[in-house]
């Protein structure tokens, strides 16, 4: 790719990082090959190679390269940090936790790592510890996006609406264009039953990341939730199983009322309710499947 005199390892790293940032993995891979031919032991370049492997889905390749780096430089911060991702992705959460703790002992002011640890604890249902870690991350760096996010997650879990609004406002103020912020906003809106608004945000996210399968799936899900034909199911979508229980009660009382007061309509009422139950059961997955197929998923 480069027809100049030999670049320094640092220059190669800068170029490769730029290509990775832009998602140009093929070009980055080609350049890393050239770079490593000249600087095979440079840990910056090796780390870039691991990143390319990780971002392209080659977890084994990434792991192998990270082990290579850590064999020479066991304290390499970035390599250990990426290793946490790999361990989490492979489901080895205890090992990921231990590595995070090591990182935090080595870098006690790393708000980002505290926030990652908080996320891990949320994932493994250690809620109280997760919230404490999130608070610590926020204390260390109140502007850190992940710290703000983990605090917001804590507020959502606790059901504290006021704090949730405030947390979301902080996130929007500090990181208005971040994908993470958009996702949290979508979560907030879906929790309030505002599916159309959530879909609009998701569509904006799709405009930024049209190649992202995850984002497309989110748009399709929200498209299904906000579809006009799903309007009769809005209470069930909004209040979940509480609404289902309520529906059961209403059905029970309603049917008996109709039977006693207007027996002529008893069959009609029964079939209508059965129809509604079947519709609530069968239609949403069918609609979602159709929308997914239409989107090429």
């Amino acid at each position, binding site marked *: 790719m480069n027809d100049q005199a030999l670049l320094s390892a640092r220059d190669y790293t800068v170029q490769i990082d730029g290509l990775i940032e832009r998602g140009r993995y093929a070009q980055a891979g080609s350049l890393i090959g050239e770079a490593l031919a000249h600087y095979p032991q440079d840990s910056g370049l090796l780390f870039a190679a691991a990143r390319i492997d990780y971002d392209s889905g080659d977890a084994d390749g990434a792991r192998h390269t990270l082990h290579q780096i850590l064999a020479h430089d066991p304290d390499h911060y970035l390599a250990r940090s990426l290793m946490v991702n790999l361990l989490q992705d492979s489901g080895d*959460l*205890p*090992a990921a*936790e*231990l590595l995070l*703790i090591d990182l*935090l*002992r080595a870098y*006690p002011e790393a708000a980002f790592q*505290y926030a990652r*640890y908080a996320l891990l*604890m*949320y*994932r*493994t*249902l*250690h*809620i109280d*510890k*997760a919230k*404490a*870690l999130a608070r*610590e991350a926020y204390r260390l760096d109140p502007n850190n996006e992940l710290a703000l996010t983990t605090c917001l*997650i804590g507020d*959502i*879990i*606790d*059901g504290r609406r006021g704090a949730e609004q405030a947390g979301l406002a902080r996130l929007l103020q500090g990181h208005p264009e971040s994908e993470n912020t958009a996702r949290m906003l979508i*979560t907030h809106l879906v929790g309030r039953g505002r599916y159309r608004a959530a879909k609009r945000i998701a569509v904006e996210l799709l405009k930024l990341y049209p190649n992202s399968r995850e984002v497309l799936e989110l748009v399709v899900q929200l498209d299904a939730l906000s579809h006009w034909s799903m309007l009769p199911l809005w209470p069930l979508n909004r209040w*979940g*199983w*509480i609404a*289902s*229980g309520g529906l*059961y*009660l209403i059905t*029970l*009382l309603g049917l*008996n009322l109709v*039977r*006693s007061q207007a027996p002529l309509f008893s069959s009609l009422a029964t079939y209508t309710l059965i129809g509604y139950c079947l519709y609530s059961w069968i239609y949403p997955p069918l609609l979602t499947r159709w929308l997914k197929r239409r989107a090429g998923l």
Partner: protein
Amino acid sequence: MREHLLTPSLSASAAPVRLYSIQSSFLVAFFGGPAASLLYCGLNSWRLRRLADIPVHLAGAALLVALAYLLMYQPARFDGLYQLLGNDVFRALRTMLALAICGTFYALHQKQHRSRAFFSDKPPSPWIAAIVCMVAGYSIMVGLVAALKGMAS
């Protein structure tokens, strides 16, 4: 640095906790009844190692026994409901108790369910546990009715 935060919480020998979904809990309650619901929700309590759920289980069991006893031996208490619901009273009460148990345990485990919703980890497959709980729940109800009849005679 807060040292207590840097103590490992996960163990290599024990898998991270995964809860059965609220959807499966609802369906077990609806189709399986209160005993099945108690058993199935108990599985989540056991996975979370929540000792504080034990009194709630005991209360649920007591309510179940009381309901069964009242329906069998003091049906007059439910005259108002009979007028409203006719012959569906038994089924209605059974289902409502089951849903109430399910709802109570959801409220107790709400934070964990909400936390789980942020991640794409799939809940464990509910089929075997649900079927076992429903069969066991049915057996418990049969046994309970037989026991109550035996006590009465």
